[in-house]
């Protein structure tokens, strides 16, 4: 199979890669670009560990082909912190012990940020629905919900001040 050349933007930086036509975006990120923050838990769109943003939309990168990233803007967990300053969501996950083994965490953080970007003040119910596609086997979801809500409150506060 002939490789395809793809030009894209990842976390604000221009990126080019070659990939096979049947290669997933997740495999491209992990195996070709060294961005191993997104994880493969299932490869079938069930666990959400591979969540990334594609043109502002939350996707399971295991269900997206690398070739589909042509001309797209991609955001991954690696771009969430600004330099050495953690995003409020990241900080809240540490403060609220919302992770244990942590393998689901990158996907959950990307997904939670996607929600807070469109709804800065989600109800618990809306949040649980939104994160229903992200499986965590260790932590128990309550702490995750509490952490996201804490981060949301902090981000709203910062916005109000600004």
């Amino acid at each position, binding site marked *: 199979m002939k490789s395809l050349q793809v030009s894209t933007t990842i976390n604000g930086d221009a990126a080019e890669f070659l990939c096979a036509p049947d290669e997933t975006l997740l495999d491209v990120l992990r195996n070709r670009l060294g961005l191993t923050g997104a994880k493969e838990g299932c490869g079938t769109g069930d666990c959400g560990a591979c969540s990334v943003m594609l043109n502002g939309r939350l996707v399971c990168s295991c269900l997206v082909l690398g070739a589909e990233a042509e001309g797209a803007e991609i955001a991954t967990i690696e771009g969430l912190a600004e330099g050495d300053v953690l995003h409020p969501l990241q900080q809240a*996950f540490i403060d609220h012990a919302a992770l244990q*083994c*942590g393998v689901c965490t990158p996907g959950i953080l990307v997904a939670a940020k996607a929600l807070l970007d469109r709804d800065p003040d989600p109800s618990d119910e809306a949040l649980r629905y939104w994160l229903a596609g992200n499986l965590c086997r260790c932590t128990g979801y309550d702490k995750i919900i509490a952490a996201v809500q804490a981060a949301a409150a902090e981000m709203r506060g910062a916005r109000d001040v600004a």
Partner: protein
Amino acid sequence: MSLDEYSRREFKQVGTRPRRPDGVDKVTGRAMYGADASAPGMLVGRILRSPHAHARIKAIDTAAAEALAGVKAVITAADFGLPDDDFTRDVQDNCMARGKALYDGHAVAAVAAVDAATAKAALKLIRVDYETLPHVTDVDAAMAPGAPVVQEGRALENVPAGMSANVTSHCEFGHGDPAAGFARADRVIERHFTTAATHQGYIEPHACLASVSADGKADLWCCTQGHFFVRTLCSAILGMEASQLRVTASEIGGGFGGKTTVFIEPVALALSRKAGRPVKIVMSRDEVFRATGPTVSTSIEVKIGMTKDGRITAGEAHLRYSGGAFPCATVEMGGQAAFAAYDLDHVRTYGWNALTNRPKEAAYRAPGAPQAIYAVENVIDELCLDLGLDPLEVRLKNAATKGTKSSYGPTFPAIGLVATLEAAKAHPHYTAPLAEGQGRGLSCGFWFNFGGNSCVSLNVNTDGTVGVTEGNPDIGGSRASISLMAAEELGIPYERIRTIVADTASLGYNDVTDGSRVTFAVGLATIKAARAAIRLMCERAAKIWGIEADAVEWKDGAAVPAGPNAPADVARRDRRGLVRDRRPDRRPPRGQCRRRRRQLWRPSGRCRGRPRDRGDQDPALHDLSGCRQGGASRLCRGPDAGRRGAGHRLGAERGIYLWRRRAVAERGLSRLPHPGRLGPAEDRHGDPGNPQSRPSLRGARRR
């Protein structure tokens, strides 16, 4: 110093909630899990799996796969030897079927190729000639006469003759006379339960990267709950010496018991050995579910008798477990745990394990116990309903407590069940009104604790901070717990300690992270290591001050003179900064400042004769200069030196001591002195060959 005895103590650090040390790496995507490793020239390994639940493998033709461009190695069971102990052979046969495929998904061959597409294509070219056989997947069916036989000749000596060949072991626990107990009951209920072979379901599939070099040395990076055990299994399977195989545990994306053994690691090593290149294998989720260990499947009968007022008169359980296609002893745990929460006069459990055409069982959260307890607790609940009794009160009434003869033999020490039940009773949730559709349940459970072999190395760094090296993969935050315990013992802040999980070449043997043992056992090793470090530092401080070792004690992270033997003025003088500079050019000239000289070098008023010379012959100074970080001249120059007086404060700006020690935590195991790991001075002055001069963890140097 016995750690076995519990004594009440005010904790300063344990019980606080510090930030977990792996937090930032995990929220930024930087943490390295099993599948995140890579190596230059790495090949992709893929495994061909049986589509049949039970089939004889008549032949495997790999020629076409080997001929495919980009394929660097193809292996089958023929590439492995035949370990002579049953346990290792079963693990190996589970990783690569030998002669028969025993379950759907059983590995039959593997390839290593330059990329995933080539590896996949190569698998399609492997021809396996199967003769399918009748299969059995249900434990009761497997125990019935005439059932398809999964493996011949696997029954242990404890299985009575005449049973199905699938029955591999039998066990029995308990005491008293259940029949007599049932006769005294007002109500007896007997029920049958089955539980499925559910999977641990960790989010991270198994992954490993193996690299075997031409000289036989090998490195293995994998996600596991016990890399030392991985080394044991893989070196036995590959016919290697353990010293030549270094295993590094990655961050682990959940295990729940399922990562306490190997599935792909020996395969990756064999492929790498054959191909001469690193090989990475990452399981798909489908492979995880088809070919890695779920828990046992079970079929259980429970019979319990109870009086009208809620006293259990007798309990009996028949437990039939299947650990899949290989013998498994998990039913023994179920048999012991089933009734262990209760104080019973008459109790008996009978356990059987049978082979079925299912994946080989792996541990899963108190393996074997929840299934049996689930059955027992259901029957107790039904009795409560029947007799109109409160399920919590009934459990309180029958709860095992200190002095209870447990259903599996030992007499319990204090076990806390009554206190737990009382706390549940007092909790608002226990009486909160229930909304429509809500329910409330209650169950007791039981699990053991068995310590296990643990090795910790604790180093005081050159700047006084501390590194703790442990050998158990951190599943739930144990690095934080271990750091906390070290901080507590040493009396220094948690932040000044970093605990890491070392590879198998860097530390003594550690048992697997299993059975809830790590915080307990590795914690004990850490506490011992910290206390040994303190003892050593106090001894060195005593030498520096020229006072007796027992006149130094460790307080708030510092060695301080103490006790009746301590010269009263040491602290005062040090506070004035006199023990400061031993460099000859800064020394007060002889005769010019005699008083100060005496204070510097003869802190003890009881010192006889000439002020002690601090020349190069003084072992204490050897110690310090060995640090190459300023040595003795920096002794009390830390930021705290002025304030803390004579304290040698950990965390002071210059290192004072270099210290390494390992501790073996299995209580009762002989302590292993390790002369090679001591600071430079000991290396020179101690004779490692002479047991008398060997330091031990129990303060032999105090003699």
